[in-house]
């Protein structure tokens, strides 16, 4: 049952089913009560990513969406402190006025669920730790969280970190809670590191079909000192008409010449330096005889936005998985996928987004087995059928994760089973 439906069906029976505190103090009081009564609780922000993770069966919903607003933004100190459920879109808008950004490029999951933008909240973004194309150069969400405040499973308000980057005072809990899918803490406030937006950007598109050649290019791009800040490969597989049409629509740019598969490379900086780097890269990657397109700053911005909006999979009814592997293994995975799946590769060969039709438990296990053998991990982002084990974990890490969970949430009331059935 979707949360909306559940909300509607339950509200009449239990007016306290959804709890909507508007400050930290109330969050703490509510959780103290939930702890006392041992009530499993689903924590939600704006619900933009609620389809990720195992389905929950909870006694209560703790809706933190009222904790919204910018607490403090000091552009010269390169940080922004926000209430936990401030929409990412609002944060980006404010930063933009000062020519700054969240440089991990938050992913927009709105398109895959409802064909329109919905970047969700700061807390949602932090809880998933999914970063966009700039990740391999600038770091992930977790590398940009300087500190937080929140309430643990006993109702105690805790904080960690601060507003400065250089900080080794106590355990780095900001890292630990990033990617924890709301299973450790109810976040109330987050401080993000922000960075200046570069003056300009350009995207060099290399029209290339051969898998071997793509893998070689990715490898050489990673070895380049030309400060590449994005590198994706968009194949034309599978060869189905609907997909090709959709793909053409998304990537229809004045200067994008060819309809075939392509590898795109982004450079950001001053116009002059970009021109210099493009010249340099053309020699370095031996691109002289290859078909190329060059997207200027306007097209380039739009191009990467569409990549990070996952628009290729807009409104998909199929399952969607996210796979991260060591970059040099991308050739193996490309071959494994053959022409059977719709996918694209980001992070210069490391990150695969793959749509899987007719997903079932066996299919998932097979792919996951293979990914583990490659030294990577797989997360089911959207599932068309209920599945077990939608995350990748081994026995030892599961054992440690359970202990960590207990230290934050001793009765296991926050999002129980969201990541792993037993955590």
């Amino acid at each position, binding site marked *: 049952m979707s949360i909306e439906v559940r909300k509607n069906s339950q509200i009449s029976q239990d007016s306290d089913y959804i709890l909507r505190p508007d400050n930290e103090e109330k969050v703490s009081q509510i959780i103290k009560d939930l702890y006392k009564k041992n009530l499993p609780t689903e924590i939600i922000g704006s619900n933009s990513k609620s389809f990720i993770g195992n389905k929950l069966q909870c006694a209560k919903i703790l809706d933190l969406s009222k904790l919204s607003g910018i607490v403090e933004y000091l*552009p*010269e100190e390169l940080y922004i402190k926000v209430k936990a459920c401030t929409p990412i879109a609002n944060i980006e808008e404010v930063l933009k006025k000062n*020519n700054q950004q969240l440089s991990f490029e938050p992913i927009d999951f709105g398109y895959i669920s409802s064909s329109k933008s919905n970047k969700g909240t700061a807390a949602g973004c932090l809880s998933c730790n999914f970063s966009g194309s700039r*990740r*391999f150069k600038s*770091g*992930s969400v*977790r*590398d940009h969280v300087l500190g937080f405040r929140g309430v643990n499973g006993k109702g105690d308000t805790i*904080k*960690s970190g*601060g*507003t*400065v*980057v*250089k*900080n*080794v*005072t*106590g*355990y*780095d*809990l*900001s890292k*630990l809670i990033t*990617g*924890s899918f709301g299973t*450790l803490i109810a976040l109330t406030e987050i401080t993000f590191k922000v960075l*200046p*937006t*570069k003056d300009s950007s350009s995207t060099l598109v290399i029209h290339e079909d051969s898998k071997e050649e793509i893998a070689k290019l990715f490898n050489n791009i*990673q*070895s*380049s*000192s*030309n400060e590449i800040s994005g590198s994706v490969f968009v194949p034309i597989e599978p060869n189905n008409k609907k997909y090709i049409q959709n793909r053409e629509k998304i990537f229809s740019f004045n200067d994008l010449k060819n309809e075939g598969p392509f590898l795109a490379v982004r450079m950001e*900086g*001053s116009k*002059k*330096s970009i021109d*210099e*780097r493009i010249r340099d890269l053309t020699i370095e990657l031996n691109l002289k005889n290859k078909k190329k397109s060059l997207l200027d700053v306007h097209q380039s911005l739009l191009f990467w936005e569409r990549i990070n909006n996952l628009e290729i999979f807009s409104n998909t009814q199929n399952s969607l998985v996210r796979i991260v592997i*060591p*970059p*040099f293994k991308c050739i193996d995975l490309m071959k494994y996928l053959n022409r059977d799946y719709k996918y694209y590769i980001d992070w210069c060969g*490391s*990150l695969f987004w793959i749509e899987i039709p007719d997903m079932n438990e066996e299919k998932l296990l097979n792919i996951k087995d293979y990914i583990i053998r490659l*030294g990577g*991990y797989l997360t089911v982002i959207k599932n068309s059928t209920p599945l077990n084990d939608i995350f*990748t974990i081994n026995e*030892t*890490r599961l*054992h*440690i*994760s359970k202990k*960590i969970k207990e*230290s*934050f949430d001793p009765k296991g009331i926050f999002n129980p089973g969201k*990541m*792993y059935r037993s955590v």
Partner: protein
Amino acid sequence: MSELALPKVDQSIILNKDKIVSKLKRIIKLENVLDHNDEIKPYETDALSAYKQKPLAVVLPENTQEVSKILKYCNEEKIKIIPRGAGTGLSGGALPLQDAILLSLGKFNKILEIDFDNKCVVAQPGVTNLSITHAVQHKGFYYAPDPSSQLACSIGGNVAENSGGIHSLKYGTTTNNILGTELVLMDGTICRLGGKTLDQEGYDLLGLICGSEGLLGVITEVTVKILKKPQTVRAVLIGFPTIEDGGNCVSEIISSGIVPSGMEIMDKALIEATDNFCKAGYPRDAEALMIVELDGTNSEVDELINKVSDIAKKNNSTSIRISKNEKERLAFWAGRKAAFPACGAMAPDYYCMDGTIPRGKLSEVLKEIKRLSKKYNLPVANAFHAGDGNLHPLIMFDANNKEELRKTEEFGAEILKYCVKAGGVLTGEHGVGIEKRELMCEMFNDNDIQQQLKIKKSLDTKNLLNPGKVYPILRKCAEEGRVHVHRGEEKFPDLPRF
């Protein structure tokens, strides 16, 4: 140095020393268990050398299995363990306890794999930071975090302390540059966190371990990311008539959207000290000296240098020199790198502090340090990683004068408290260790500390791994010692100090 409170000694362990040592000698090679006084003396302190304590015994395991067996045995017998890398830590993190086994990673000194394809290096924890760069530089790669102790400190110690360096401003600290570790928990469990992929799925245990100061597990393998060297690196040396002008210049450079690879400031006391010490050729009339390093492509670096110079002029700079070649760039750094020894030459002892503050508070905090220097009648020289607000005030004193020593400790604690008051933190890169343990309550309340202790307890139920470090044990937040160097008899005197 004031008396240091340490965890209660378990007399039964001391009484059972012979039994424990002989058991350890059955777990690992005989010659890798040290228990004679002269053998264990080198392990009695780290680079916070004011505190000394011999452990019960020292073990030097050679592989992960041995580490696991030692920990399992010690866990069962309730014997405390102190992990140790190269012993360059400045906060006493590797200080032994009388009833503890010191576990040195000294024999874990091999690079296991150089993987240019996946842009990473797999190393044992005892490998030094710099030798990783040495192993990959022939192909134009390097490992980015560069603590000034990089010649001696171990990569395992770097992970345990989340060490930084002058280039952390652009490239981050250890936590942003590692991909995986192998870890042994106190109960002997061996686990792998991360690998050769970017990010982990699930709880970021790698992020938790990084900076955990040896309290959560023993690191037995580290996978680090390597980067391609930038095409061009140049430095600018800028003199300012007041420290405020220097501070304002730092803020304005950052606000303008430039992220230099390094940005350092020295105050007048240090300019003179270093120039006397190593004839660095610094402008002696300046009240503050800034070194800004920029890297990238040729034209980008040129452009940025012009921008930085313009901002400096706007902030009343009195001199600007731009490095014309690599030799000159290194010469700019020579004085800065001699900062610690230069202070050592000026006074019998010095204390090095390590607070971080918001950049904009630089001149305010400096003024306060100056005021305190007058109040305590003790000279202080200041070096900062200004770009990220990390201060290293060096208080000069004579430890033979007990009253001066007491005053120095008080002075140091007041500086750190002021850093916290100014919106900063107690330690930017040297760690809490035993040194700043009792000051933790300045930053954290009981709930915050309890949550951290619960994590510790969940992985080390009996509190046997490096106990007495990081978290207050006096619970009165007393002011304790800082880096103490007596008559230049510091540990690792040859290393540059930032």
